[in-house]
């Protein structure tokens, strides 16, 4: 005997035609399992329908989307032009340089902005990680070195997969959970405004503290361009409160 599961759904909903309803009634008269289930399902349906609505919807649900729309539409073209400068600066080794923020006038191409924004976030792969790591200039350098040796090891096949976050490994603290895409996008926006160019490919993004202040830390792979593989990693640190530059270090791969 086959139990008419899909019909039972409509039976409980009260949406069956009389003939269908009669045939389900006939089945129920012989099938204790289905009879029990109809009782249970009817009770559950009633309970679900009487659920109270949440008292309010948060006011800021649109914020990350609208910010991505506005920011992406306004600054992209000039931003792209500064890439070579910032890349050169990163390769030289540089510390605590300050590049002025880029103005925000320009084109208004939302399609391009949406696509560029999506590319920035590397689709779903890149997530901001919340860590309890506290960094200072020395441990930042150590984190860069740790990243390089970890990457070298994984390329030589010694490690199947890189550890969740190198700075945590460097400082001996525990790795932590990944945050939402909205928070990830917010972090990228902040870093981009702090570091003007913010070139290269972001491979890792962490929320840390830097000498006690809440900060974003991005690991950015940079190469000579022209399709050449990355030859350096730069760690960028910006304050989460005002997106100002806190520190920067880089290491050769």
């Amino acid at each position, binding site marked *: *005997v*086959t*139990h*008419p*599961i*899909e019909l039972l*759904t*409509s039976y*409980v909903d009260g949406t069956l035609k009389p003939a269908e309803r009669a045939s389900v009634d006939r089945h129920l*008269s*012989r*099938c*204790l*399992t289905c009879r*029990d*289930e109809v*009782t*249970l*399902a009817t*009770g*559950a*349906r009633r*309970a*679900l*329908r*009487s*659920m*109270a609505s*949440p*008292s309010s*919807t*948060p006011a*800021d*649900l*649109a*914020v*990350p*989307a*609208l910010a*991505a*729309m*506005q920011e992406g*539409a306004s600054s992209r073209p000039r931003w792209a032009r500064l890439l070579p400068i910032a890349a050169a600066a990163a390769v030289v080794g540089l510390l605590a340089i300050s590049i002025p923020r880029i103005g925000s006038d320009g084109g208004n191409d*939302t*399609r391009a*902005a*949406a*696509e560029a*924004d*999506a590319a920035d976030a590397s689709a779903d792969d890149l997530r901001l990680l919340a860590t309890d790591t506290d960094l200072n200039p020395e441990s930042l350098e150590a984190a860069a070195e740790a990243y390089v040796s970890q990457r070298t090891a994984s390329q030589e096949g010694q490690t199947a997969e890189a550890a969740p976050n190198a700075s945590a490994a460097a400082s001996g603290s*525990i*790795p*932590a*959970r*990944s945050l*939402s*895409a*909205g*928070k990830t*996008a917010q972090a990228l926006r902040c870093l981009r405004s702090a570091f003007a160019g913010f070139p290269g490919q972001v491979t890792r993004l962490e929320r840390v503290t830097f000498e006690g202040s809440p900060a974003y830390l991005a690991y950015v792979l940079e190469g000579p361009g022209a399709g050449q593989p990355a030859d350096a990693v730069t760690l960028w640190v910006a304050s989460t409160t005002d997106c100002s530059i806190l520190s920067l270090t880089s290491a050769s791969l």
Partner: protein
Amino acid sequence: VNAAQSDEDLLRRSLDGDAAAFGLLIERHQDRVYRVCLRIVGNAEDARDAAQDAFLTAFRKLAQFRGDAAFATWLHRIAVNSCYDSLRRKKRRPLLHPIRAEDEAPFELGPPVADHAEEVAGTLDVGRALSEIREDHRIVLVLADVEDMAYEEIAAILDVPIGTVKSRVHRGRVALAEALGIGPDATRSRHASEPTTGSGTSEEAP
């Protein structure tokens, strides 16, 4: 605000860079998206994140929206995926990390209104029971019984056949009733889970 403007009009204007139009589009759908997320992920903080992510993803994919489904259907598909994402990330969260107070307070509903105290208490129970059943069951119940969406629309949102939606609804309701501790003897055998053809066990003669 011109209520006569269709989602499609606002969508077109959004693609032309009209942030106000996109804001309006979000405003139009955000209450339901948030409610759905709240019932699926089970707490206000994660629901807010999931809904924000859904709108951000919708923005990024706006140019890919083909109009072969209603915008609301497309948006809810993104929202459900965003909730799945949130649930997955939560599972991966290392146990070493201290559990924050907000993680222990599921189904926040805001301050209860005195007149509705009983309803709110009932909602807390149902909310907890929802969090105890399978995710695929929970999602169809939220869409079908809490939000009262048609099975056709749910099938479109989840991209599964309508028969699958109906059988998940039934099995979900039974599982929820058991999680709530209502109904007849819970120890009796139930129909096996999907696929939908029943096993024929526990048939009883009249």
